[in-house]
């Protein structure tokens, strides 16, 4: 789960990482109140989860109320690369002497934590990596040993952080590492990490991605889930407890298992179609789940046909078939279904589907994934 900048900064603050005083605003009036609190000059920053906000005009300096009114008015409602700006973050403007970069992630190949640190901050780290890879220090950290202040300081020395910022950066790294590990982040990134003319080190931005698997020990994350940006279909799917991702095509997809669902998308694409969604119904595939899945797909006006791809492992074919028949009766579908049912007791399952009395115009069955995909794509054209 990706956090907005303002949420990331609030999260950082819990781990004593220095961030600017500020507040979030949904309206121009709220922005004015927050600006008064933060003290002028302030920065008005669009809260969207996409890079390049500054270039798009989503970050502006304001010296007084009039300028806040102007900039907040322009930025709220702005479209930045397809992301609608619903809120702005207002914070006291910082004087910047230098800009650095710091992040912690999990390096899956090494199975260890990875610190990336650079004295060249303020630009995308990918750009730095391309321009001057030696400007980025990469340090692996054993998860059960952790990061000591001495190691953090050495990393800062290696990254050629100037001497007056070394202690501040090292201290910041230890705090950011604690936020990353105890805070169950997939990513904790500060870019830019700034040195102020007064000598303090400070997080000017915050990019935090949380590991939702750890939600059980972070009840405070509920507020973040509430602001997550989902489209209407994704919202409905979440309420029904389904793994759903909205896409732009015309073939609605239901499969059991994430791998099989991904594979179904691939096959639909290979035979010249395009998937309207990714939907993993999980192992059960019973009537309730199938009904919920069909309801979600049915809410998508772009869907012209529905491809159900089920491989019966422990769930037997006849149980899956009964679930589908029941679900088709419950939901009044706008698009025809093509089913591929395979695996344990698939024969019995197909017989149930054939004998259910559902007209061919509404439901047909194909023996393989490829044939089913062809049929569904043909119906969608």
């Amino acid at each position, binding site marked *: 789960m990706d956090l907005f900048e303002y949420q990331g900064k609030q999260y950082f603050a819990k781990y004593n990482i220095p961030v600017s005083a500020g507040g979030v605003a949904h309206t121009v009036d709220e922005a004015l109140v927050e600006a008064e609190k933060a003290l002028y000059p302030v920065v008005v920053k669009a809260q969207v989860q996409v890079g390049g906000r500054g270039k798009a005009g989503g970050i502006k300096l304001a010296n007084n109320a009039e300028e806040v009114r102007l900039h907040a008015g322009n930025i709220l409602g702005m479209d930045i690369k397809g992301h609608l700006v619903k809120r702005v973050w207002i914070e006291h403007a910082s004087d910047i002497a230098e800009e650095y970069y710091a992040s912690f992630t999990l390096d899956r190949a090494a199975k260890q934590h990875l610190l990336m640190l650079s004295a060249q901050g303020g630009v995308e780290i990918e750009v730095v990596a391309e321009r001057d890879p030696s400007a980025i220090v990469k340090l692996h950290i054993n998860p059960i040993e952790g990061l000591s202040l001495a190691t953090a300081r050495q990393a800062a020395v290696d990254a050629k952080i100037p001497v007056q910022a070394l202690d501040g950066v090292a201290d910041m790294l230890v705090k950011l590492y604690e936020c990353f590990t105890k805070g169950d982040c997939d990513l904790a990134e500060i870019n830019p990490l700034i040195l102020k003319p007064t000598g303090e080190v400070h997080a000017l931005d915050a990019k935090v991605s949380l590991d939702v698997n750890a939600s*059980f020990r972070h009840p405070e994350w509920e507020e973040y889930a509430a602001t997550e940006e989902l489209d209407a279909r994704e919202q409905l799917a979440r309420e029904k407890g389904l793994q759903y991702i909205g896409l732009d095509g015309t073939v609605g997809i239901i499969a059991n298992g994430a*791998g099989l669902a991904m594979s179904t998308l691939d096959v639909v694409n290979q035979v010249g179609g395009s998937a309207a969604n990714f939907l993993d119904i999980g192992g059960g595939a019973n009537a309730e789940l199938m009904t919920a899945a069909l309801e979600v797909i049915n809410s998508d006006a772009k869907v012209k046909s529905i491809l159900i791809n089920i491989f019966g492992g422990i769930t037997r074919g006849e149980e899956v078939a009964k679930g589908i028949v029941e679900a088709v009766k419950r939901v009044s579908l706008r698009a025809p279904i093509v089913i591929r049912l395979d695996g344990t007791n698939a024969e019995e399952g197909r017989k149930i589907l054939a004998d259910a009395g559902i007209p061919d115009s509404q439901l047909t069955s194909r023996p393989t994934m490829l044939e089913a995909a062809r049929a569904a794509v043909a119906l969608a054209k």
Partner: protein
Amino acid sequence: MAIFVDQNTKVIVQGLTGGQGRFHGLRNRAYGTQVVGGVTPGKAGQDVEGIPVFDSVEDAVKATGATASFIAVPPKAAPAAILEAARAGIGFVVCITEGVPAQDEARVFATLQRDYPVTRLLGPNCPGIISPGKCNIGITAGEIAQLPSATGPNVGIVSRSGTLTYQALYELKQQGIGVSTCVGIGGDPVPGTSFVDCLAEFQADPETHAIIMIGEIGGSAEEEAAEFITKHVTKPMSAYIAGVTAPAGKKMGHAGAIVSGGKGTAQGKMDALRMAGVKVGLNPTEAGSLMAEIVHSLR
């Protein structure tokens, strides 16, 4: 022969008295697996359809001589359960639990590496392992696995995805091809056992003559496998990578399946495997057909 588990493997189920543990533990026993005990703290002395339950893994190992453990407990309890099994000297641990936090997985992996190097962890979030006709630990439906033939050729399967593991088993069964062992390594960010671990075992196993590998988008495990194959695998291979059409930045179900920053794409993985001499299918059926061609050429 088979890899990791065979007819001599004695299994205990951690969480046998829970819903998942009981269901799959009993299924595994019905398949012929030696399920010799279960562990649920506070329930020692009870039994689940004749399988004795113990308070700790240590007690279970002492009483039964178990060599493997099947962990079916909730995500909160899984890290401690894995380490308990390792501490009791279990050599092979299968953890099917879905939803273990990545930070916990990283710590557990590092702890095993440092303190219990002889323990191999499969998972978390994996379907398990089956050596057809010998041993089935996890949630795979044993019926869909073709028995290995005495004369060969037999195929080893290694897969990151659950249902695609079944799909691979099924494709081989349709073709009448025997399976030596099928390992589902799971799709989480820090799997205990990697493609490379399985490929090394399959390469060394005389009963395995060819290998089929099922990967998916995200991470770099397939690229690492390709590098290993180039250097160390002489047995013929086919492969399939799921997620060619997955959009960047969207997590596809598994904690691991995501294309980010242009990395972890299916195309990159397919290219790497082709470079390593692996025949890559564009869908599971094609990977199965490619394997059938390989097997016919070996016969």
